[in-house]
């Protein structure tokens, strides 16, 4: 299996296969196929772009921890290519967008798909250039910066287009920022997990600094948990205080009834009330179990939140969701695993 994975071209084949499978699943008729694809797509675009963004951000501010997980983080870039293909699969599904009936200048299917596609591809391209560059050096920083710019735009677009316009004319200006911060948040979580898998539980006598790498990541997660809470609060407070029916509807529809209400609360916990206290103590920041727990809760949080966003408007089919999600997850793990093996061999 391992050996197989490391063969040349296998990865490409795998991705193609997955793409085909997903295509079949989501294009065959039946309710909720598109919804399922959209959900898994939203989650993985966030995580994948987040991982690369994390690496990029680390590189720009030349943080120490980057070195230890950079390669693996960047290895996921091919998935962006796949995602941009999957985006095309959404075309038949666009009709559930409320504006689909009356297209405008901005909200019209071709432009809609077009711009998102372009930015996904751009993200892919910039990510590859960044990955190709050597670890150190100004040049790399510049490339990283470029990626970050694209990343911000692309995530904002996914937020405003794929999610927000589902509730047209509901509007929240913060939505884009909220999304890319969250993606970055997820990116750090993944980095932390990666770090534990690669250099996991080092012996006490291990080279100094490694521990502090982990705690650096923890600090980042900790900081971002506060930041996330801040953004969430800013958004909620504004809507709650203004109490303008059109705005409030978005929240009201999600907290009106079970199970969405519970899930919404769960999101709060998974993304803040668990990671924050968990990582509060200095010692906890370098405790593998705490950190991995926090990281997992963050990733689950993001996933559930995406679900909560879509649920009132979109229908899902559990089966399709299962397949879509599983495929992407496997690929995600596969590429990283393969890269790390490769790294190990070089070492």
């Amino acid at each position, binding site marked *: 299996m391992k050996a197989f994975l490391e063969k040349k071209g296998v990865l490409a084949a795998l991705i193609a296969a997955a793409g085909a499978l997903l295509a079949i699943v989501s294009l065959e008729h039946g309710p909720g196929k598109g919804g399922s694809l959209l959900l898994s797509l939203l989650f993985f675009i966030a995580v994948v772009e987040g991982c690369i963004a994390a690496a990029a951000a680390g590189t720009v501010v030349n943080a120490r921890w980057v070195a230890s997980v950079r390669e693996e983080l960047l290895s996921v870039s091919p998935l962006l290519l796949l995602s941009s293909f999957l985006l095309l699969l959404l075309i038949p599904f666009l009709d559930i967008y409320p504006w689909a009936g009356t297209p405008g200048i901005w909200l019209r299917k071709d432009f809609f798909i077009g711009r998102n596609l372009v930015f996904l591809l751009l993200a892919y391209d910039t990510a590859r250039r960044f990955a190709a560059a050597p670890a150190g050096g100004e040049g790399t920083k510049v490339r990283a910066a470029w990626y970050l710019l694209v990343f911000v735009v692309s995530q904002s677009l996914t937020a405003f287009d794929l999610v927000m316009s589902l509730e047209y004319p509901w509007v929240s200006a913060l939505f884009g920022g909220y999304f890319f911060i969250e993606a970055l948040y997820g990116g750090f979580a993944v980095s932390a997990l990666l770090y534990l898998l690669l250099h996991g539980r080092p012996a006490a006598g291990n080279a100094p600094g490694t521990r502090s790498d982990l705690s650096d990541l923890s600090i980042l997660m900790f900081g971002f948990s*506060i930041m996330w809470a801040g953004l969430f609060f800013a*958004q909620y*407070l504004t809507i709650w205080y203004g109490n303008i029916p059109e705005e409030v509807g978005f929240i009201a529809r999600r907290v009106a009834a079970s199970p969405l209400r519970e899930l919404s609360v769960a999101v709060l916990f998974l993304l803040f009330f668990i990671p924050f206290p968990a990582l509060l103590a200095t010692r906890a920041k370098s405790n593998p179990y705490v950190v991995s727990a926090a990281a997992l809760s963050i990733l689950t949080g993001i996933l559930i939140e995406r679900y909560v966003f879509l649920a009132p408007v979109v229908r899902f089919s559990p089966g399709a969701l299962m397949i879509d999600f599983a495929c992407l997850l496997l690929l995600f793990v596969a590429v990283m695993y393969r890269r790390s093996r490769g790294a190990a061999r070089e070492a």
Partner: protein
Amino acid sequence: MAAAEKYAKVDRDVLAAMKRPGRAYLAGLAFAVLLAVMFHLLWAYQVRSGLGVVGKMHPVMWALYITNFVFWVGIAHSGTLISAVLFLFRARYRTSFNRAAEAMTVFALMVAGMFPLIHLGRSWVFYYLLPYPNQRQLWVNFRSPLVWDVFAVGTYFTVSLVFFYVGMIPDFAAAKQHVLGVRKKIYTVLSLGWQGTQKEWRHYNMLYLFLAAFATPLVASVHSVVSWDFAMSIVPGWHTTIFAPYFVAGAIFSGTAMVITLVVPMRKYLSLHEYITDDHFESIAKILLFTSLIVSYAYIVEFGLAWYGENIFERETFRYRLLGDYRYFTWTMLFCNSVVPLTLFARRLRRNTAYLFAISILVNVGMWLERFVIIVTSLSHDYDPYAWGIYKPTFVCLGVDIGSFGLFFALYLLFVKNLPVLSISEIKEHL
């Protein structure tokens, strides 16, 4: 050069600033004080005659005063950012700015704090805004953003002051050894009898770390609260979820600009080139660029969504901003805040202090205009068309606003001559 010699040099150079002032300095100080006096006279005049003497009107009930309030609070922020956040990020170049920045924070907050009072219709009962048990047992309305302000800004000021002072304790101890007479006494007392023993240093480092940790969230929270003074309303152009982060970025943006505006001349006048190098300026310039990008992002999103949504009120407000009576302000703002800073992508310009100084002035102007545009355009064209109106300032509010700058610079000039403008101990530590 021998270690002792190096340390001694640091002392000399930094404390050289405290030597007897030159003409230029005195002239500047005199001018600043003059403005400060005008500030207070005009305020008195306003209190006596009623708020009618400022140009405010129905519907534009807030204008220059609130603009300035937001502006000065914003200025304060980068101080905390540089001293606290960069400290946590272990950014070395912070050492050369933090003292100046912290001083700026404190003074800016002093000035900012006055404006809410000035703009009150009945300044003489300002204490109604404080939570105290009055004879009717009626407390303040904690649901009102303005009360959040009282708490946020109050906290911010206190913490910054403590931070500012704590940072100076060892320096007072060092300074007292180089001065004589009354000053010596004052510094000695201010140094609290600091010896520099291991125990003191241990607690001191922990304290500093925690103060930094406490101050950091303030950078975000305070200006978020300020932004909510607007976002909580339902005024089109104010009621936007992005306001909090948008204002925070804007605050740091303008604050960083102000740091540059202050430090460039200070470095020149006090000849601190060895301690404040071009590299340091470059790093600060990067912050400027970065925040400018965020602000621009916010502009794009705001205007974009106003156009995207089907909310005719929002749409009209933003159309009015771009093409209405205040369009020149808007365009200037966009130019100063979004276009000019882009030049900082060029490394050469980032290292050119003269250029940075020029830019920093422009950015200050731009950010001041931003607040003005946000406040005034939104108010003058909100829901009921009958109530639309155009606001024109009068000499009183203009005078008070200009005067506030005088107040600020007066305080700052006094600081430069009387307190260590760089963190002596930290510089030595990093030698």
